[in-house]
């Protein structure tokens, strides 16, 4: 057993399989997407910890079944919130460490997840797109994108915005321009590494991190802003584990930055008479504890009323895309998202807003698959239209 897993030995023996991780504590709505779908004990967080124990004790061996069990977890961290035991905060860390171990033993990741690692290695993004096209999102707004080598703020675009949600990258640039912010965008950005870390494919991670940290250093930025919850989580929480922490650099999600602008009265927004509901991305909410900033931003829009979904903040239902599930279980990822769409529809909202392009992709896929009339926007796109 690897050092990474024996490190968690004590925590593995904390779990008594009381089942509290399976539902939202004292509310009892579903909270674990994998458990809800597959229902065997093994597919719940507690089951995975006991699988790890079985491996530690030599009672079972690595297998494809273990691979399927481990990689079906979207790492939404709902279990870390609902488990009442002292190891609760480490459950996702343990699952990610188990995945890394599975990969090292040749039992993971799933084929589509392996494919995005190959793409990252070759083209520095998981989407099998050419690295040379990473900046294509600038087309049509080239003159609006700063060309500076140095600035106090670096806008870290992220792969999903660069290749799949280009409108989000563009909207972020426009928003930052409207706010008169001193920022720059690097032409040398690589994948933040999140898809690899979540799926245990750690070989390339250090290289990615070192590259990205170097480019941050080169810009002289003391603040890095990203509009992707996944990049945010990775830059803020994972990077310090893999490399020396970059001193004096603050990592902010765009909503944190916008909240600051609101507090400093630098954000003047047009009126929008609408009912909005907000989906908490797991990487922003449960992983990083950012619940209020996006809400403050939404509520700063005159005329808007914010209506919460039944499961919100630390109890938010996962969009289904995270943890490699979008790649590994394409249909099921949309199935998970469909639950979220239904929940949003129940609020009778005019707009469903999120703060992560990866969430947006999967939520949009569910909207299309279910022929829903729901309107989905990223918070940046929403605000950009209102400044």
């Amino acid at each position, binding site marked *: 057993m690897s050092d990474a897993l024996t490190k968690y030995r004590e925590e593995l023996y904390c779990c008594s399989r009381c089942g509290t991780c399976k539902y939202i504590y004292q509310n009892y709505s579903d909270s674990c997407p994998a458990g809800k779908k597959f229902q065997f004990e093994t597919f719940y967080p507690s089951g995975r910890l006991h699988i790890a124990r079985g491996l530690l004790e030599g009672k079972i061996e690595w297998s494809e079944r273990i691979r399927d069990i481990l990689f079906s977890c979207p790492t939404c961290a709902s279990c870390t919130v609902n488990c009442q*035991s002292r190891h609760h905060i480490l459950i996702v860390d343990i699952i990610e460490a188990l995945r890394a171990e599975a990969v090292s033993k040749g039992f993971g990741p799933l084929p589509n997840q392996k494919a995005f690692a190959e793409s990252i290695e070759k083209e520095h993004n998981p989407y099998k797109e050419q690295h040379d096209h990473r900046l294509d999102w600038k087309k049509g707004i080239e003159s609006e994108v700063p060309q500076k080598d140095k600035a106090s703020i670096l806008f870290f675009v992220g792969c999903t915005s660069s290749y799949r949600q280009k409108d989000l990258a563009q909207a972020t640039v426009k928003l930052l321009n409207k706010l008169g912010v001193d920022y720059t965008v690097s032409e040398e950005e690589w994948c933040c590494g999140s898809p690899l870390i979540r799926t245990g494919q750690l070989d390339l991670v250090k290289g990615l991190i070192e590259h990205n940290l170097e480019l941050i250093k080169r810009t002289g930025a003391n603040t890095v802003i990203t509009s992707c919850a996944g990049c945010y989580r990775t830059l803020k929480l994972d990077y310090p584990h893999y490399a020396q922490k970059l001193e004096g650099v603050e990592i902010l999600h765009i909503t944190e930055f916008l909240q600051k602008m609101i507090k400093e009265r630098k954000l003047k927004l047009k009126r929008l008479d609408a009912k909005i509901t907000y989906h908490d991305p797991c990487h922003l909410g449960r992983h990083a504890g950012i619940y209020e900033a996006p809400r403050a931003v939404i509520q700063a829009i005159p005329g808007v009323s914010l209506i919460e979904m039944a499961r919100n903040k630390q109890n938010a239902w996962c969009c289904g895309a995270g943890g490699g599930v979008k790649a590994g279980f394409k249909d099921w990822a949309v199935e998970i998202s469909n639950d979220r769409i239904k929940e949003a529809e129940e609020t009778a909202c005019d707009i469903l807003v999120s703060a992560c392009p990866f969430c947006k992709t999967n939520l949009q896929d569910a909207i299309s698959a279910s022929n829903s009339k729901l309107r989905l926007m990223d918070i940046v796109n929403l605000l950009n239209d209102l400044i």
Partner: protein
Amino acid sequence: MLQQAEERAVITEKLKEIVGKEWVSDHPEELLVYSYDMTENPAHQPDFVVMPKTVEEISAIVKLANENKIPIVPFVTGSNVGGLTIPLKGGIIVDLKRMDKIIRFDQDDMYVIAEPGVTFGHINKFLKDTQFRYCYPNAPPFTSIMANALLGGLNNLSLKYGNMAEIINGIEAVLPTGEIVKIGSCACWDEHWWGRSSMPDLIGLFVNWQGMTGIVTKIGLQVWPNHPFRDWKFVLSNDFDSTYHFVKKLANCEIMNDILLLSTETVKMVLGVPIGQAVWLEGEPRWATVLDFAANTQKEFNAKLEIVEDAFKEVKKVDTKAAICSVTAAEKMYGPRVGDFKRLPFTIGGMLEYGGHTWVGTYMTSNPKIVSKGVDKAFEVIGKHKFEKCLYTRMMKGGHYWAFRFLLRFSKETPEETERMQKLTKELFESLFELGAMPYKTPAWAADFIIKRCDPQYVELMHKIKKTLDPNGIFNPGRWGND
């Protein structure tokens, strides 16, 4: 366990035909995880785990098992504290989680009809916005209400109504030979599950039988009206006899919902004091009593409170340091966790976060002399084995009997610790049995002890009934002498 791989493969395929391939597993991973629970009871692996959705699927599984003489063990959450879902002879674990519907709620007769997978969490959520409440043990929300009822578990209305088996109105079950039967008023009318009177009561064939007589697929369970005025009091005291007398007196007054008498060690465990450190320290109060009462009007509430306070004054005469406070005061001292009694079901983190939890949980006489002797004896035994003396007791059914339990947490990190706990539970159980304490959710090893000491006619009758219902002896074999 089935020895031949081909044999197993054939059964796996047949099970898949019944429930669908995604609901059957014979993978080592599932077999391992389903082979043990949080208790000190040894692991035994099943051969298959299957998750049916309908009664018809269960019936087909049972018929298949009979044809091939494969043991069957019903399972929902596996969190009974008696090792009762550990398949002692291997076979098929029938995980009933997918059957999680509350089928009907009858507000006039105040009962719900629930499938096996309905947990305390589910029913709490279901009744939340109604005028009704269910009854809860201090068990995590993910615990089956059906299993707890069939195993005669206790709860926070046990003072009024007894153990949970006493609130069963009716059941539907798949017998060990595959037939589907209804028992109770529902045997005549599907729309009426109001009770067990007045036909010969066969519900007992499933209560405390630990899944040996079939799989219950629906259960009618009583619920109660909520009362608008409700409060909890905590009493700290040193003297057991006067405290117990106080509890018994209040029980006999028929005004309380629930009375828990705990040792200080139990309180500390609930507060999260680490394992091994929940010990009574010289000078501390020895006992903590939790009183739960409710009323329909403020007048009634005040009257009940007066009775409680008058009874407490009697304690104070003997035990001058005894003190009483509200749950609000306790929450101010210890944080909201201590007020979780108000918000059942809840998970006692401190109890469950070392991987191992068990008890010796018994029902016994409420005779004060015997109870007192029981406490002394139990403390002696537990102290000898160097575990924490987490006493957890409850007056049952108006004072007709007494729930006498010790919550025992241990780490499963080393086999030695589990063996130590096995020695403790054995000695503790045997000591208490001598005093007239009968374990509920009786583990197999304790059942073996009991059948050698109880009326042989009882044992013979039990075996006769079991043989009649389960001629191939496939349902949860290895328990109560039914091999």
